[in-house]
């Protein structure tokens, strides 16, 4: 089993009301020095079988058509190394 991570972020030119709300809250809570916050979504997909090119193409496809709204969002697909998975599990 391998893990593939799909990160979905609003495109840079698109307004991010959630990120703005977080950013406005920071100074109120005493956290200074953050000039901008943008909030996205992270999907962790556990893939059966090997993560080969075909599998990645499939995941790219599903991210493009389902996980992300590509009119307003960008996404990246990356394979998490086994070590990182183990690290995360600890």
């Amino acid at each position, binding site marked *: 089993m391998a893990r593939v991570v799909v990160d979905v972020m609003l*495109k840079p*030119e*698109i*307004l991010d*009301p959630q990120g703005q709300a977080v950013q406005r809250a920071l100074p109120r809570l005493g956290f200074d020095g953050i000039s901008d916050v943008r909030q996205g979504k992270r999907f962790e997909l556990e893939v059966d079988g090997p993560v080969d090119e075909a599998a990645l193409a499939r995941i790219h496809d599903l991210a493009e058509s389902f996980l992300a709204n590509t*009119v307003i969002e960008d996404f990246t697909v990356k394979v998490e190394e086994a070590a990182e998975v183990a690290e995360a599990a600890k």
Partner: protein
Amino acid sequence: MSRTPLDTVEHAAATPDVELPWAELGLKKDEYERIVEILGRRPTGAELAMYSVMWSEHCSYKSSKVHLRQFGEKAPQSDAMLVGIGENAGVVDVGQGYAVTFKVESHNHPSYVEPYQGAATGVGGIVRDIIAMGARPVAVVDPLRFGAADHPDTKRVLPGVVAGIGGYGNCLGLPNIGGEVVFDACYQGNPLVNAGAIGVMRHEDIHLAKASGAGNKVILYGARTGGDGIGGASILASETFDDAKPSKRPAVQVGDPFQEKLLIECTLEAFREKLVVGIQDLGAAGLSCATSELASNGSGGMRVTLDDVPLRDSTLSPEEILMSESQERMCAVVEPEKVDRFLEICDKWDVIATVIGEVTDGDRLEIYWHGGKIVDVDPRTVAHEGPVYERPYARPDWQDALQADDANALPRPATSEELKDQVLKLVASPNQASKKWITSQYDHFVQGNTVLAQPEDSGMIRVDEETGLGVAIATDGNGRYAKLDPYTGAQLALAEAYRNVATTGARPLAVSDCLNFGSPEDPAVMWQFAEAVRGLADGCLQLGTPVTGGNVSLYNQTGEAAIHPTPVVAVLGVIDDVARRTPVAFQEEGQLLYLLGDTREEFGGSAWSQVVHDHLGGLPPQVDLERERLLAEILISASRDGMIDSAHDLSDGGLVQAVVESALLGGVGARLVVPDGLDAFTFLLSESAGRAIVAVPRSEEVRFNDMCGARGLPATRIGVVDGDAVEVQGEFSLSLAELREAHEGTIPALLA
């Protein structure tokens, strides 16, 4: 588009041969040449950006203007009209010192690209038009049209649009009280997402969009400016999609309803303290539109420093800042000594506000960037004196054949059993079926002043808690009728909305419209448009209801195929006491059902012809606006004097559709008798205009009949409210359970 060195006015004058991307920005060659002629030199990049968005079809009404003039020329005398066409929204006197502003706009193209955000920002835009007039928004309505109900793309577009409208409106705390949902294959690829809003204010609070008084400050407040929707106005709304290369597709705007709510409160507080000289919301064409319109409506010029505009993205070029359609922004003109207080109020509401310029005593709009003058124009040439086209129009050659294909000649049900099946099929068809699944996603009752909401004939809002004064609004349109005859079709839309307002007991006062058509470059479409506008203007004159404003959406077509011409008409009415309203639902067994008006054999464009025969041809129902006016008077008097307990207007689907709706909503059935001189089929399914059904308590029957008789309105007793079925004597009986399953099951089955 950013160039080095900075493309200032001087630079432009010194480099006349620089090629500018005017074609990419949607300008035609002769339009570009006209700009050069106006300026006496080539425009700077920033000037070109402004002209291109402001001269787009969406902002300049260049194809429609010559026709829209009729709304002014044929405007009926009306004491109710306080502010007319040309402002952000019209304002109507509703009595007791209150004024109401309302308007309908389209957000069709953005809603197809990104249904949720497109529809949501449509609501946001129309609400800002209302607050720019100084009114507090009290309700929204949404007339929607989609492709075939069972088409897969409808399942993509509709839920997004509905969620977007619901999400934005609910966050703002505005009840959604009306509108329509229509399906037709012609809207595949071109859904119509129209949004209307109503606002209430005291007479003394009306505000107009103008910048007067040299030295007054121009304040931009609301959200920061980002790269969203750049060129949206010029490219997205003004060309058909297949012209647009993917790279040309601009970024969609994303709305933030919570920011808009702050904007409402902040703006109204500034109005209350009389801090504002002029105000304009930023919609299509953003700052280009706001600065040029404010300046050209005022007495003087304006100087703006673009560096002071708060940005979300510091890499934006001045052209992009001018064209950006970032949502939730407004522009106010404030006297210098009041600026501090204005900024204080903005700060209180957590709204970013920045002085970006001032009104000058010249007559030029000058915009500076990094110290250089990048715009120096006469604002009138940008905002009001854009190109005007007398586009050729011609009655299409297929119109005669279409009208000759008479729907009255279609095979009719031969037996009672067949009639029953067709009725059941009709009330279950997507267009006639209950839209509860959709409308229940909107909040109807927030704010606690909603008196009526869909599926009532009109939405109604209480304006004054003490006196019960209220306003009603109905929106209607029927693209099928308008396709058969655009002149009559537009009048039928007007007549239906007028009737719907009167059916609930309110007196119709004024009209707003949203005219959705195909490409004006097609003479056939232009003819449809010209005919519809003429019909609407003539109709408004006859009914005494002036058009207070509206919106035109052209280029609703994919390739050669235009949508049905779809004029959507909103009628606003007033009711002295909302306690006297008339609901659609049957109230009590034993009450007598009367049919008001004349029924003729009229099946052209009817729901029956669509559902049973998939047919569109013949002529739409005749219009008799004097009859509509009489019917309205009777309905209003009957409601005021307590002579009727429920009423429903007859329109698409005919009498049986109305009876089924009233029965299902009231939970009580009806026994109907086919009147003398009519056959059951015509009685149940004809769509003759100028008709309504009313339920009269037995104690009021004589009085009601006397009133109709005295005023000359045909009133035919057709049955009684009774039982748990809709029974047509001698024909068939359908139980309420069976009807409910058919009527309410369709939409969830298709879309849920």
